[in-house]
C-alpha cells in the first residue's frame, strides 16, 4: 500500500457532492416526468375479460380446499371443459392476439417512451461527467481491487503507479448510479421510474400471450388435488370457543 494521496478539498466540494446531488435530483425529476407523461390507455375489452378470467381461475385454485369436493369439481369442469369451457381456446385462434399486440401502435409508443425516458438522462449525465470531470483523481474506494480493474476505474488518470483504489469521477458516477437505487426506493415509494431492472422484467413478461396464459391456467387447474381441509373444523371451532369462554 503506497502512501496516502492528499486530495484537494475543492474536489470534494465541487465534484463529489454536486454529482451525487445532481443524480438524485435527476432521478426525482425523471420519476415525476414519467408520471405526467403516462398516457392513459383505453383497455381492450377482450384483454380485460381474459385477465379477469385468469384471476377467477387462480382464486379457485387457491381456495380449492375450502369448498366441498363436488362443488370444486363442478367449478373446475366449468373452466376446463373441452367443448365450451372458458379456458379452452381452439387452436385456430391462438396466434392472433400476439400479432395484434405487436403491431399495436399504442403499446409500441408506450414502450418507446419508457425506454427513452430512462436512457436519455443517463446518457446526458454521463456525457456531462466525462466532459467536465475527467483527468483527475476523484475519490478513494475503501477496499482494494486487482490491477485488472485499473483500466475500468481510472479512466482519465494516466499514471500507472497510482493505487487502484483511487478512482476517477466516471467510476464515482457508476457507483452513484447503482447505489442510489436503494435511496430512491425509500424517498419515492414503490413503483418509481428509476428501477431499471424491474422495468425490464415487466416489459418482457407483459402478458403478450393471453392465450398461452389461459392454457397454463387450465393445466394448473387440472393438476390440483382436492384436499378437503374443513372436516375437522367443528372440532377446531369447539376448541377455540372453549378457550375463549374459559
Amino acid at each position, binding site marked *: 500500500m503506497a502512501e496516502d494521496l492528499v486530495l*484537494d478539498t475543492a474536489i470534494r466540494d465541487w465534484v463529489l457532492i454536486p454529482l451525487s446531488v445532481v443524480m438524485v435530483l435527476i432521478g426525482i425529476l425523471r420519476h415525476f416526468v414519467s408520471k405526467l407523461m403516462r398516457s392513459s390507455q383505453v383497455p381492450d375489452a377482450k384483454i380485460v375479460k381474459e385477465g379477469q378470467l385468469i384471476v377467477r381461475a387462480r382464486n379457485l385454485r387457491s381456495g380449492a380446499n375450502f369448498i366441498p369436493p363436488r362443488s370444486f369439481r363442478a367449478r373446475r369442469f366449468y373452466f376446463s371443459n373441452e367443448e365450451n369451457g372458458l379456458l379452452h381456446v381452439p387452436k385456430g385462434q391462438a396466434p392472433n392476439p400476439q400479432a395484434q399486440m405487436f403491431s399495436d401502435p399504442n403499446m409500441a409508443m408506450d414502450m418507446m417512451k419508457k425506454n427513452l425516458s430512462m436512457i436519455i438522462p443517463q446518457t446526458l449525465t454521463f456525457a456531462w461527467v466525462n466532459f467536465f470531470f475527467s483527468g483527475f483523481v476523484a475519490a478513494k474506494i475503501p477496499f482494494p481491487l486487482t490491477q485488472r480493474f485499473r483500466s475500468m476505474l481510472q479512466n482519465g488518470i494516466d499514471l500507472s503507479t497510482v493505487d487502484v483504489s483511487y478512482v476517477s469521477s466516471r467510476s464515482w458516477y457508476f457507483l452513484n448510479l447503482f447505489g442510489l437505487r436503494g435511496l430512491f426506493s425509500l424517498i419515492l415509494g414503490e413503483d418509481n421510474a428509476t428501477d431499471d431492472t424491474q422495468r425490464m422484467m415487466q416489459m418482457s413478461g407483459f402478458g403478450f400471450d393471453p392465450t398461452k396464459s389461459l392454457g397454463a391456467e387450465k393445466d394448473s387447474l387440472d393438476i390440483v388435488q382436492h384436499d378437503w381441509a374443513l372436516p375437522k373444523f367443528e372440532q377446531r371451532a369447539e376448541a377455540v370457543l372453549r378457550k375463549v369462554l374459559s
Partner: protein
Amino acid sequence: MDSIPTFNAEHLQSNMKTVYYSRTFLSIIGGVIAGIMGFTSLTGFIFYFLIMAITSVGLLAKAGFTVHSYFDSWNRVLLDGFLGGLMSFVLFWTFACDLVHIF
C-alpha cells in the same frame, strides 16, 4: 388441531416491502458509520454482514419470533434482500470515508 396455512397475498407483499425498506435504510446508515469509523476492505464487508444480521434479529424480534404468522417461510425474513443493500452500502461507505479521511 392444525392451522391450515392461508396467506393473504397483499399482506404478505406489504410485509416484504417493510423488510426491504428496513434493510435498505439500515444499509445506508451502516455505510455512513463504516465510512466515518474508517473501516477498510474486509472489515467493511464484515460490518455490512453484521448490520444485515442485526436487521434480521430486529425483524424477528418485531415479529415476535413466530415467523409463520407474518411470512410464509423463514428464508423470507432472514435471507431475502441480503445483497440488495450492498450497492447502497458501498456508495455511502465510500462517500463517508472520503469525506472524513481523505479530504
